[in-house]
């Protein structure tokens, strides 16, 4: 199928080019529908979130209260920081109006009059690109008061983060938007009841929102037939690591992982064999190179294989990769990014990294293998947000699938000779 999220159209980031290719048609169409009909269309399309959790988007929208005296908010999550993920950046750069159009339709469907697009601080250049696109959309009356001459009004604000992985977690994002430190909140209450500034809020990923205009233009039936039936639609897959052609590839969901690596990304460098693949960003459990057959890029297939779609950031590691070094780096990342609010995560991530460094130096004790697992198991599920889980999963999966790698890095026992001296 042809690319629809990142089509190969030069200068599509410019508003007149976007309009020339059918841009903002979906918004016109949506504004002629009832808001409930728009939500229903998205619900029936089976669109599932592209930010990592694969939650059904339409269903999420129905959680927003219809009768409320409070203002409602939409937060578009562009805090893309999961190692191995670089897809939303392509949307900001090459198709910003698709994101703006999707944001407007989502606002209309949920009766929202203010949307915040939260973009990570490191993407300063892309923040500017989005601001330019938004200014153009304002100038053409697609955004603002009485959009396209209807009674519907919505403001869109671009909000720049300042460097914190945790702000990609939806409740931390809301705190950050409020001007706080990015501390995740306890759920319940869920954002649809008590969100940003205590008001009903929906948080959707950038790529998720960018699917919405196509669903409105072509109908839910068309959309639901793309890719894997239970997790349909186009998906942006970022391939990195030891491949010949790393990059972001748009494809229908359900493409075999081996095809993604070999057909889309040009295969492994120097024709080496694959030792391991992280299929959906650093938090998703690692897969062995010899267990990739039949594993596809959709929620069910990944779950069956013992991993997850996550953000579809595929990291490929060839036969010569030092997996202990890779895991040590992952452990360091979670230690650095733990917000420090929950003790198991704050202390556990640092402890995991410390032990991993011992393995990296081949100075670990045999008992450290069980200790790693014990710590990971005690972090998982015992924290306010999923960062603790995300720190535990790579360790658990690596121990399950590559235990031999750890055993090889245990320091040989010192042989004591029974003469009193140490040999």
């Amino acid at each position, binding site marked *: 199928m042809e690319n629809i999220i990142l089509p190969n159209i030069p200068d599509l980031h410019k508003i007149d080019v976007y309009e020339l290719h059918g841009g903002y048609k979906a918004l016109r169409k949506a504004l002629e529908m009832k808001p409930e009909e728009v939500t229903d269309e998205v619900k029936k399309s089976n669109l599932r979130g592209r930010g990592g959790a694969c939650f059904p988007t339409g269903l999420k929208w129905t959680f927003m209260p219809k009768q409320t005296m409070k203002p409602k908010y939409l937060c578009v999550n562009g805090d893309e920081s999961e190692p*191995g993920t670089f897809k*939303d950046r392509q949307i900001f750069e090459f198709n910003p109006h698709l994101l703006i159009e999707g944001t407007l339709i989502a606002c209309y469907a949920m009766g929202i009059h203010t949307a915040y697009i939260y973009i990570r601080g490191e993407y300063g250049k892309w923040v500017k690109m989005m601001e330019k696109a938004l200014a153009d959309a304002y100038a053409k009356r697609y955004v603002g008061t009485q959009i396209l001459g209807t009674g519907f009004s919505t403001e869109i604000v671009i909000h720049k983060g300042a460097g914190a992985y945790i702000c990609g977690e939806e409740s931390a994002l809301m705190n950050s938007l409020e001007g706080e430190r990015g501390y995740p909140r306890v759920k319940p209450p869920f954002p649809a009841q008590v969100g940003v500034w205590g008001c009903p809020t929906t948080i959707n990923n950038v790529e998720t929102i960018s699917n919405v205009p196509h669903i409105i233009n072509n109908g839910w039936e068309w959309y639901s037939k793309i890719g894997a039936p239970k997790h349909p639609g186009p998906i942006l897959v*970022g391939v990195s690591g030891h491949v010949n052609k790393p990059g972001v590839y748009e494809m229908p969901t359900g493409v075999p992982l081996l095809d993604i690596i070999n057909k889309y990304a040009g295969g492994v460098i120097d024709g080496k064999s694959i030792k391991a693949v992280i299929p959906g960003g650093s938090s998703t459990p690692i897969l062995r190179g010899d267990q990739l057959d039949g594993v596809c890029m959709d929620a069910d297939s990944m779950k069956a294989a013992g991993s997850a779609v996550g953000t579809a950031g595929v990291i490929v590691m060839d036969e010569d990769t030092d997996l202990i070094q890779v895991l040590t780096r992952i452990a360091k990342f979670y230690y650095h990014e733990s917000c420090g609010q929950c003790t198991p995560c704050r202390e556990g991530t640092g402890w995991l990294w410390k032990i991993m460094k011992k393995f990296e130096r081949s100075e670990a004790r045999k008992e450290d293998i069980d200790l790693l697992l014990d710590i990971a198991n005690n972090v998982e599920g015992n924290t306010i947000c999923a960062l603790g889980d995300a720190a535990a999963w790579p360790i658990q999966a690596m121990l399950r699938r590559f235990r031999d790698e750890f055993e090889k890095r245990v320091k040989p026992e010192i042989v004591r000779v029974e003469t009193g001296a140490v040999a």
Partner: protein
Amino acid sequence: MLSQEKLQKIDELKKKYPTTKALVLPVLWMMQEELGHISTEAMKYVASLLSVPYSHIFGVVTFYTMYQSKPIGKHHVEVCTNISCLLRGSGKIVNHLEKRLGMKMGETSKDMKWTLSEVECMGSCGTAPMFCIGEEYHENLTTEKVDKILDGLK
């Protein structure tokens, strides 16, 4: 401490958020743009400007990695060493930078020209290894390319 133009921008921003506290991040960005880093005085200034306690501003500045509470070099070289970059040779880039600039990661040169930092994933995994100087991403790095980029910086 902020220019008239920026103060005007703050007034416009106030209309876009239901609380003034929401302006903490945007205003801190402005401070850093104007002054290069956010000193204690700058934090106190933001606190009074937005009517939030200084302790809150201090908490925010120290929480987010991109806010600099100390002066940094004219060119801030931020090298990603996370997995995708690690697999594509970021270690070599780090060694080369440290050798060439005669300093370690996390240090600032005495002449305040350079600051070297190791950073987490910058979303440049398909074009690894990479570093960023200011807002500019430099991708698909090789040691030769690094030399060329650094040579071009005054």
